[in-house]
């Protein structure tokens, strides 16, 4: 390595500067050869240092050494302990850490390192501690523990920090040893050196983190004293939040939150790092009130106009999260936020836009959309996707604005963009079509235009599938035919095949189009792709070239879904070997495979995020789960004849969470039946349950009668299974009742070693909590795009009005949420959010009662100084008795 004074060098080599590197042409084999100088009796320390640097350079560039090479280098490196050269010794420390010797090699260096650990030179001691703790194992650790314990309280910060940080790493594998240092670590917490305090606090907390009382004591004493280091102060804020969180279950809800004052005080700290940590902590407190939020929002607002991008980013990201749960608290920052739309840093701009979209009200939508249109042209796709998602949830919140938002989506759909971006837009349009009935026709025609010029096969096929399902149900189905048939002429084989399927669906469902569709399909018989021809032939057969299939049979055949998880079908098809025996789809397992751990983790994260997104996602989620329930239920022959599923309830727990058998129930309402789906999980590893069923006691509910019970054949440990009970009730009637339940099953012991169950088993039963069928099970959440119009369209003569006192409530928001949950109707126009400090509020709800009767409700709330909440409920529907029933829900609860 030719090291020359960089300044001189620079002038000479200016021309070939880009080429120059001291490591130019470096090669592993040659460097390993060079490393032999480590063994020279007369060490050339400069040269050795250069060779180490070269070795580290190779490792850093991703080169890897074989086991033998590493061992050789390691042994050679240990020889360098003979040299007294300081700079070389420092490189040797680094080299040993990078090469991570194996357990049997470590012994070679321990004595040298232990010598350095007891050296008079603090820098040697600190480095030796870090290296030793990195490579040592539990046995040897016992030998040096005494030194480490002393080092923790060493007066030189570098030694103390080295010991403390090493302690944090060692705690993972040798907790019992590190825990013995508690007293010393406690002493180090009071160190004058800022970083030592930080490391000591981190280690002390990790030692005691499972001891609530100890953590609480630690926080109590430190919040009173003064913590010097900003980093340590950040830690203290995190631990304080932990204490607040764990205490929230115990302390009464009223009164001042413990430690809140400390967090608020940190908002005035001189280090920005601490101010931000405190503000962030406050916004994330469980059940934070708007009074508690205000000071935190104020400091974040100041950060928004900082000259430092990092501060602006941190603030806008935190406010973005607050906007999900407390949109109104953030509105004060809207002006600052709007100026951030033009921020140089596009991450900041995107976060600002999506925050504005979350906090915006109906009147600001149009103005906001104008600003966004300019913005969209100059950001990267990944930011655009975030914006599209925000617009989708905005549209679900204000359905009557669908025209503006749908137009926006179709405009950006026409512009340049990658697959992920286009997919996000198409997905959004699909969701809007499903959720907002009025938006369907315009949405479909936007999509039709898009596929005229769509380069993504996946999106084209997805849209064609949707057109096939939804197109025939629109007022003028024929207008879609042209778009679809154009695909048959112009596109690749995959798209052509989907287009043929879509055409066939029009033929099956719209009688007057059938002859024309047949003509188009016949043309496809000459396609040069097998799949397209096969599909055309099949559909022509089904649609009536042969007249022996009834027309609705054709429709059913075409729109039927498979009812088996696709992954299972794929596996079965792969396992199938061509033979005389035809492939039998009925033999494919219908049970979804249990998720792998990684997927579960993902799911959990998604759930957490969904929970955080809260109310706005509500509109989307239930629809999805209902359809998956529908598939599950349709697959059971006993339920084939009971008609169409009206509503599926949320799962209700029938057992405590941590019991031997965890059971929850989902109620599925049908016109003349109710299906109870019991989801059971066996949490005992040594047991296999067989013939699991739930016996329901219908004696207290005379209108119900048990028709069928479908037991579960076997319920092994850990993988949930379902058993069903089908009850009949008078058609269309609103039958209510309460049922006692007992879980009955046969237990077989499982040998934990072999996993084989015993032959012999015994019968057992397990009592579950009662299930109740309430009026709520007969109301579906539906949304209307314009509440006022729909409200006025209903006869005011059939309106039922009543007033109720709801008693003392924590807040208006809480009361509104409780009533909405009781009614089981869909809040529309974002009226489920109550502005902070409001004394009164009006919420608008929409739903559909069983028998397809639309119901609308207007709730007016008021709260007085004593937190007494009064409510006026006005209900309108086409059927007076339905309105009355809705009133009954509130009256009876």
């Amino acid at each position, binding site marked *: *390595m030719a*090291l*020359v*004074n*960089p300044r001189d*060098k620079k002038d000479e080599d200016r021309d070939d500067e880009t080429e120059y*590197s*001291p*490591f130019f042409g470096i090669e592993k084999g040659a460097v390993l050869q060079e490393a032999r100088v480590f063994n020279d009796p007369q060490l050339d320390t*400069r040269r050795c*240092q*250069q060779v*180490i*640097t070269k070795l*580290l350079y190779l490792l*850093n*560039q*991703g080169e890897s050494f074989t086991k033998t090479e590493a061992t050789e280098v390691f042994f050679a490196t240990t020889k360098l302990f003979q040299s007294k050269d*300081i700079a070389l010794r*420092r490189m040797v420390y*680094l080299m040993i850490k990078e090469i991570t010797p194996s357990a049997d090699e470590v012994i070679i260096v321990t004595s040298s390192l232990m010598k350095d650990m007891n050296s008079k*030179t*603090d*820098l*040697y001691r600190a480095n030796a501690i870090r290296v030793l703790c*990195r490579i040592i194992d539990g046995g040897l650790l016992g030998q040096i523990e005494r030194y480490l314990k002393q080092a923790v309280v060493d007066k*030189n*910060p*570098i030694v103390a*920090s080295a010991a403390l*940080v090493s302690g*944090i*790493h060692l705690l993972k594998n040798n907790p019992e040893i590190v825990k013995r240092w508690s007293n010393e670590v406690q002493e180090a917490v009071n160190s004058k050196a800022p*970083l030592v305090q*930080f*490391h000591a606090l981190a280690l002390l907390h*990790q030692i005691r*983190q499972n001891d609530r009382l100890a953590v609480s004591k630690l926080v109590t004493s430190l919040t009173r004293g003064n913590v010097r280091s900003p*980093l340590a102060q*950040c*830690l203290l804020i995190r*631990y304080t*939040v932990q204490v607040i*969180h764990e205490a929230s279950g115990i302390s009464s809800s009223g009164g001042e939150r413990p430690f809140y004052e400390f967090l608020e005080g940190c908002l005035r700290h001189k280090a920005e*790092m601490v101010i*931000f*940590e405190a503000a*962030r*902590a406050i916004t*994330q407190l469980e059940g934070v009130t708007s009074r508690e939020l205000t000071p935190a929002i104020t400091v974040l607002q100041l950060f928004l106009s900082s000259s*430092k*991008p*990092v*501060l602006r*980013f*941190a603030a806008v*990201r935190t406010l973005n999260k607050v906007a999900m749960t407390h949109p109104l608290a953030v509105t004060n920052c809207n002006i600052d936020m709007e100026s951030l739309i033009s921020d*140089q*840093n596009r*991450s900041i701009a995107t976060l600002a836009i999506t925050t504005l979209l979350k906090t915006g009200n109906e009147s600001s939508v149009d103005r906001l959309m104008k600003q966004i249109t300019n913005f969209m042209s100059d950001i990267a796709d990944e930011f655009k996707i975030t914006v599209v998602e925000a617009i989708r949830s905005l549209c679900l919140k204000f359905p009557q604005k669908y025209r503006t938002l749908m137009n926006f989506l179709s405009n950006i759909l026409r512009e340049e963009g990658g697959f992920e971006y286009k997919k996000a837009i198409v997905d959004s349009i699909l969701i809007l079509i499903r959720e907002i009935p009025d938006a369907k026709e315009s949405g479909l025609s936007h999509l039709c235009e898009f596929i005229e010029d769509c380069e993504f096969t996946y999106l084209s096929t997805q849209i064609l599938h949707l057109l096939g399902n939804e197109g025939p149900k629109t007022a003028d189905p024929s207008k879609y035919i042209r778009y679809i048939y154009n695909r048959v002429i112009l596109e690749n084989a995959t798209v052509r095949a989907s287009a043929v399927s879509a055409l066939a669906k029009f033929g099956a469902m719209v009688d007057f189009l059938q002859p024309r569709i047949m003509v188009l399909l016949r043309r496809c018989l000459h396609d040069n792709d097998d799949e397209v021809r096969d599909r055309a032939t099949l559909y022509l057969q089904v649609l009536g070239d042969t007249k022996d299939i009834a027309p609705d049979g054709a429709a059913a055949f075409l729109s039927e879904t498979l009812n088996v998880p696709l992954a299972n079908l794929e596996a079965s098809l792969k396992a199938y070997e061509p033979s005389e025996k035809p492939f039998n789809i009925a033999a494919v397992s219908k049970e979804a495979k249990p998720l792998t751990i990684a997927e579960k983790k993902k799911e959990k994260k998604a759930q957490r995020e969904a929970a955080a997104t809260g109310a706005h996602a509500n509109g989307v989620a239930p629809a999805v789960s209902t359809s998956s329930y529908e598939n599950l239920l349709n697959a059971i022959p006993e339920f084939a004849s009971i008609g169409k599923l009206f509503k599926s309830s949320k799962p209700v727990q029938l057992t405590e969470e941590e019991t031997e058998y965890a059971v929850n129930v989902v109620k599925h309402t049908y016109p003349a039946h109710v299906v109870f789906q019991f989801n059971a999980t066996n949490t005992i590893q040594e047991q296999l349950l067989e013939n699991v069923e739930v016996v329901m006691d219908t004696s207290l509910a005379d209108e119900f009668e048990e028709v069928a019970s479908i037991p579960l054949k076997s319920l092994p440990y850990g993988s949930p299974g379902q058993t069903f009970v089908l009850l009949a009730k008078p058609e269309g009637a609103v039958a209510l009742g309460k049922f006692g339940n007992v879980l009955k099953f046969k237990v077989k012991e499982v040998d934990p070693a072999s996993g084989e169950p015993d032959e012999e088993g015994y019968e057992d039963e397990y009592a579950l909590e009662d299930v109740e069928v309430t009026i709520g099970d007969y109301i579906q959440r539906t949304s209307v795009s314009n509440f006022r119009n729909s409200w006025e369209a209903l006869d005011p003569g059939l309106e039922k009005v009543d007033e109720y006192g709801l008693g003392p409530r924590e807040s208006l928001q809480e009361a509104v949420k409780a009533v909405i949950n009781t009614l089981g109707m869909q809040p529309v126009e974002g009226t489920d959010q109550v502005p902070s400090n409001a004394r009164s509020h009006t919420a608008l709800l929409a739903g559909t009662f069983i028998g397809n009767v639309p119901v609308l409700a207007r709730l007016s709330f008021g709260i007085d100084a004593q937190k007494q909440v009064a409510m006026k409920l006005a209900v309108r529907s086409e059927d007076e008795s339905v309105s009355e029933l809705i009133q009954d829900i509130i009256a009876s609860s």
Partner: protein
Amino acid sequence: MDYSTPAIKNILLLDSEGKRVAVKYFDHEDWPNITTQTAFEKSVFTKTSRTAARGEAEIGMFDGYIVVYKFIADLHFYVTGGDDENELILVTVLQAFFDAVSLLLRSQVEKKTVLENLDLVLLTLDEIVDGGIVLETDSTIIAGRVAMRGADSDIPLSEQTISQAFANAKEQLARSLLK
């Protein structure tokens, strides 16, 4: 909410083409091998290379990580943390790295000098963060520890005055340059 100690996931020093100059990964679960590491470096580089991060440090969220970065001459400095990390802690580490390298290279911060003094830069990485935990954030102290100031004299490092420390650092540097 996370009650854990702030964690640094990696520190990267790339050149103007996105190639590695010096890197240190602390999280071996997220990036177990060289393939995943280079993929991350490439992704971060393409997303940041056209931004102006020459004055104030810039920030972005890429692939679910928070990345703070600062450019000078033909060098790109990055510090990565998890998506829940306090952004201001990350930027403190970035600034410490940047300033310590500047001190050690006597403000000659460019790819050529960094490569010529790669040992000092690698040691700086070693002195800033240990196994993901922030070890020191004061650039003068870091530079002093890298140069092993005080190891060969009786005056402990903590008792040196700044000018003394600086004079010593200079002397040390001159020595290493004259090798």
